[in-house]
Structures are given as structure tokens and as C-alpha cells.
């Protein structure tokens, strides 16, 4: 009876605490909303500056052909203005074309090699590179045509309907994993340090209650919250952004329970280390922030340097987020995510053990 009533009271306290609710629901709502609305799925546009003072008719045709390429947005200007625009970051690449880039088919003189100068924006190297590749292809094709060589290859592109995994499908499960982490770490770290500082834990010790009962009630409350939180956030994604849950809900909840356990261990460890509530955010953020940004929550880790990817793979959030994403967005089953589950179990054991050693309910026995 004691544990049941304690759990109910703890749940009431959790729900009435605005700070916990912020980490649990409000912040993930905002993240999903903002990143969902930015919509990284829209085709990317590459801003290309084209400089050609007085292009010949054929060169102008070539420039028009460039303009027909859908990813290009063509800006015309002088070498000086376009270079300035590039420096400002408004261009990804600038092509400087000689006026008679294209040979005039009516002239019979032997064609000369023309040089196109490309200025690329290093800060947007990926886009610049794409622009250069397309330019090269276009020029090659023209060369072949001019040489009247036969076409040897033809690429036939067919569209096939696939399970469409959009950015938002990638994002939502990651945000769920992240917010379960935030909830578990912060709600425990803040609340228990506060109880310790205010002498509430001492007051509890003056009753015949076993400390384990109190901790059990706190843990059970958080596990319940994690389940409800996951459900609400996934539902939010489905209703507002038309995301899908392809995998089994049961597996999702099991994953979330394991993830929450792992981070509850971390939360208790932090409140074991922190002497005052003021120290909690400092300690917690050192641990939580790197994981938040490096564990592939917002962007795939493949865009990070290899060594960093390696490190991050072993931090607790990454296997959790990856497994959750694979189940939610990919419909993976238990066997497909077992390596991640193994890592999570390992972390859960390590963090809970750490919590047992650092967290003291009772006063140090002097």
C-alpha cells in the first residue's frame, strides 16, 4: 500500500511541476514543430552566379540550358558583383564564361580550348561541388555533340513508389529518445537534489519507510511518464506531420522502458554528485548536451567526422535513438535491433551501478 500511495503522490507532483512538463512534452513539441516546419525535404536550390559580358548567341543558348536545370537558380552579373555576392554567402558557385564559349557552328576554323573559371563557396562545398559536376557534364555533352560522336550510353530513369522516409520520419523517433533522456535525467536530478537540500529526504528517514520504497515509487512514476510521453509525441507526429509508426508499439514501449532506466541511473548519479540544486544543470548539461547534438537526433551522424561517429556510437543515447528510429520508421523487429539493445542493457547496468554507489539517501555514516 505504501508504495502505491507514494507512486500516486509522486505522479501528482510530477504532473503539477511545470519544469518537468517542459522537459517532458513542451520542448519536444517545439523541436518537432520547428524542424518539421523548416522541412529539410524540399529540393535544395543551388545559387549559381553566371558572368558573361557579351555572350555570343551560342553561348547564350548554353546559359539558357543551365537555367533549365531545376536545382540551379541562375543569377547574372558582372565578375565583381557576383564575386561580392559569393563572399556574402549568397552564391554557392560563380561560373565566369568567356563570351564565345561555344563554337559557332558556321565558322570552320578549328575549335580552341575555352576556359570556364569557377569560384566556389567553401562554406557550401557540397552545393558548389554539385554545381561543378553538372557544369562538367553539360560541357562534356556539348564537346561530344560538337565532335559528332555517337551516344554510347543512355540512362533510363524510372520512378518507383517506395515507403517514403522523409526527414520528419527520421526526426520524430530521435526527438522521442532525446526527450525520454531529458525527462529521466532532469526530473530525477533536480527533484532529488532539491529534496536532499531542503531536508525532505531526512524527514522521510524519520519515518519507518524503507528508502527503496521511495526510490521505487519515483522510478515507477518516471517509467509510466516515459510511456505516456512516447505515445503522445508519436501521436503528435502522426497527426500534425503525417509520420508513420511501422514497427510494433510493444517493442517501442519496451525500448523506451530500457532507455528510461538507463537515464534514470544517470539522473540518480547526478543527484548523488550534486551538493545543491544550482549544481545540477551544470553537471547534467556536460553529460546531456553532447549526446543531444551528436547522437544523430537532428541530423544523421554520417555528416560528422569518422572519429566522432565512432565515439558517439558508444554513448547511451545513440543506440537508443537508432533502435527507436529503426522500429518506428522502418518497422524493424527485435532481432534487427538486438545489438543496440545489448548496448543499452550494458549502459543501464553501468549507470544504475554508478547510481547505487553515488546516491545516498541517508546521511553519511560518520
Amino acid at each position: 500500500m505504501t508504495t502505491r500511495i507514494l507512486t500516486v503522490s509522486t505522479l501528482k507532483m510530477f504532473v503539477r511541476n511545470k519544469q518537468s512538463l517542459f522537459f517532458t512534452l513542451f520542448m519536444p513539441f517545439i523541436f518537432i514543430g520547428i524542424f518539421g516546419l523548416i522541412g529539410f525535404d524540399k529540393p535544395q536550390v543551388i545559387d549559381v552566379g553566371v558572368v558573361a559580358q557579351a555572350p555570343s548567341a551560342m553561348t547564350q543558348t548554353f546559359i539558357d540550358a543551365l537555367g533549365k536545370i531545376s536545382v540551379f537558380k541562375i543569377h547574372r552579373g558582372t565578375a565583381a558583383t557576383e564575386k561580392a555576392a559569393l563572399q556574402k554567402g549568397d552564391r554557392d558557385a560563380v561560373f565566369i564564361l568567356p563570351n564565345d564559349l561555344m563554337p559557332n557552328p558556321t565558322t570552320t576554323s578549328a575549335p580552341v580550348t575555352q576556359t570556364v573559371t569557377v569560384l566556389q563557396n567553401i562554406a557550401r562545398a557540397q552545393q558548389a561541388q554539385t554545381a561543378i559536376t553538372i557544369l562538367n557534364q553539360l560541357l562534356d555533352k556539348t564537346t561530344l555533340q560538337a565532335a559528332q560522336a555517337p551516344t554510347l550510353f543512355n540512362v533510363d530513369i524510372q520512378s518507383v513508389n517506395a515507403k517514403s522516409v522523409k526527414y520528419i520520419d527520421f526526426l520524430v523517433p530521435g526527438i522521442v529518445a532525446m526527450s525520454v533522456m531529458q525527462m529521466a535525467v532532469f526530473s530525477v536530478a533536480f527533484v532529488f537534489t532539491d529534496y536532499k537540500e531542503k531536508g525532505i529526504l531526512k524527514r522521510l528517514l524519520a519515518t519507518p519507510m524503507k528508502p527503496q520504497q521511495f526510490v521505487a515509487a519515483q522510478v515507477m512514476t518516471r517509467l509510466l511518464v516515459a510511456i505516456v510521453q512516447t505515445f503522445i509525441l508519436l501521436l503528435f507526429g502522426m497527426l500534425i506531420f503525417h509520420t508513420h509508426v511501422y514497427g510494433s508499439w510493444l517493442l517501442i514501449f519496451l525500448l523506451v522502458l530500457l532507455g528510461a532506466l538507463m537515464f534514470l541511473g544517470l539522473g540518480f548519479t547526478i543527484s548523488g554528485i550534486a551538493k545543491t540544486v544550482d549544481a545540477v544543470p551544470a553537471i547534467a548539461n556536460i553529460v546531456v548536451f553532447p549526446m543531444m547534438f551528436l547522437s544523430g537526433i537532428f541530423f544523421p551522424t554520417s555528416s560528422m567526422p569518422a572519429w566522432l561517429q565512432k565515439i558517439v556510437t558508444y554513448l547511451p543515447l545513440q543506440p537508443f535513438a537508432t533502435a527507436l528510429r529503426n522500429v518506428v520508421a522502418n518497422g524493424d523487429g527485435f532481432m534487427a535491433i538486438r545489438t543496440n539493445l545489448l548496448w543499452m542493457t550494458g549502459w543501464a547496468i553501468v549507470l544504475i551501478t554508478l547510481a547505487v554507489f553515488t546516491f545516498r539517501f541517508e546521511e553519511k555514516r560518520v
Partner: protein
Amino acid sequence: MTDAIIKVTDLKKVYGEFTAVDGVTFEVRQGETFGILGPNGAGKTTTMEMMEGLKMMSSGSVILDGKSVAKHVREVKSIIGVQLQASSFFDYLSLKELVETFGALYGQKVDAMELLREVQLEEKAKSQVKELSGGQKQRLSIAVALVNKPKVVFLDEPTTGLDPQARRNLWDLIGIIKKRGVTIVITTHYMEEAEVLCDRIAIMDHAKIIALDTPLNLLKLADGGATIEFHINKPIDVAGLKGLPGVDDAKSEDHVVFLKSKVPALALPAVFTFAQQAGVTIQNLQMQQPTLEDVFLKLTGRRLRE
């Protein structure tokens, strides 16, 4: 004494080099209100928390209701009620929910409203702790200490920091609990509080108990007796006053007379008769009984509060 509910024997608490409680021995009788009076840092809280099973004892023993606190902590905790010197309660719970939650910690269902009514917090049942005044917080703290219908209630400086009105209010409440036959152990550094509330008082200083007795007997230790002070309309024969029965000493300054008397009941009528015969009118008479403050001063050479 056979009716002792608590027996404290040679209790000691050592923090490294520092001895916070240095071998105290005393008994608390069934149903009495037992005070521990002493200045800040005397070791009152440490003594009490060892009795409550909250702090480990360095040596010595506490037997409460026949059970050793060191060996049977949980049984002892279930029959005592505790108000800590500095403790707050959960936020985000109403007082009613809070009292019920604490009941659950004792494995008991409690009538929270009834308890809150007893401490006059009924109309605050739906409020949260942060909305309470200092006095109300202390009353809540007492209500929570009573959830398990304890045999012994420990109150650690329950009125420190309260205004006089709230303090008197709390004294009344403690009086009601006492009337029910609950044994109360209370610490304080207000001698007036100890005098009003306690059946017996242990005076503690520098980790030791330096005196233990009923307030009346303790007051006898301050052997100066009462001070009587009055105004007169014309000079009076001071030597004659000194010779009166019950008067130990007399002096006069301006139009004010100061007398010392161990038996004011004898001295006062004699003084009035003497003045009447001399044709002197007595005005503004005040009498100051010795206080525990004087006792403490006498025992230690220091004032209780500095």
C-alpha cells in the same frame, strides 16, 4: 524511576576531533514534557536526532519504550513523531495530500482533515506548503509528526523564528497534545518557552547537560531571589526597609527603590505597612522573578542568547 519511557545512557557523538555530544545521561518519563534548553551549538539537535534514530551514536545507548534505538530503528521510528529543526515538505501536493502521503509512509490510513483541524489548518487543506506562513508551516510540521498517533513526539525548536503571537499559538497546540498523555521532548533556546511548557528541563551547554530538574527547582539555583522595584514620593528610610521580614537587601536611587527578596509574599505586606507608617506613597511597583536566564548565567557565567 520505573515510568521512564526513554532512557539515555552516556550518549556521545564525535565528529572527527570535535565532540558534539559528550556523554549525556537522562530519562524521560511517560507523559511528561521534557525540555532540552541551551544556546546554539550546545548539541541539542544532535542529541535529539540520535534519540530518533536519525544519527548514528558514537557510543552510549538510547532505549525508547523498551526498545534499543540502535538495534530496532524501524520499530522505534514507527512509534515516534518527529519535527526536525529545519525541514520542509514536498511542493505540488496539497496539505491534505501531504498528510495522507505521510500516513502511507507509516502504512496507515489517516483522517487528514481531522489532523489539519487539530492544528487549525483546516481551511488551508487545499493549499500547498509554499503558501503557508512560518507559524502555519510549523503547525503543519506538527500535524505530520502526529500522523502515526505516536507515543513520543520530538519537537526541535518549534517556535524559533516565529512572532510572539504565533509562538503562543504553538504553545497552546503543544499543551493540547500534552493533555492527551503524549510524551513530548522539545528543544528550545527560549527559557520562557521551557518554563511554560516543560515538566522537567535539561540545561545543555558545550555538549554536556549541566543541570536537570523541574523549572521551579532550577529557579531556586538562581539564589538571588526576586527583584522588587517601586517609586516613592519622598525619601524613605533604607536601613529600616532592610530590617523588614523577607527583605534581603535594599537600596534607593532618586525616587526609585530596589529590594531583593527570596520570599516576596512575606516582604511585600511588610513594605506596604512600613511605607504607610512613614507617610510614603508607593507607585509603579514591579516585581521580577528570577528566570532560567539567571540560572544559566549563574551556571555558566554567560547569557543564554548573545
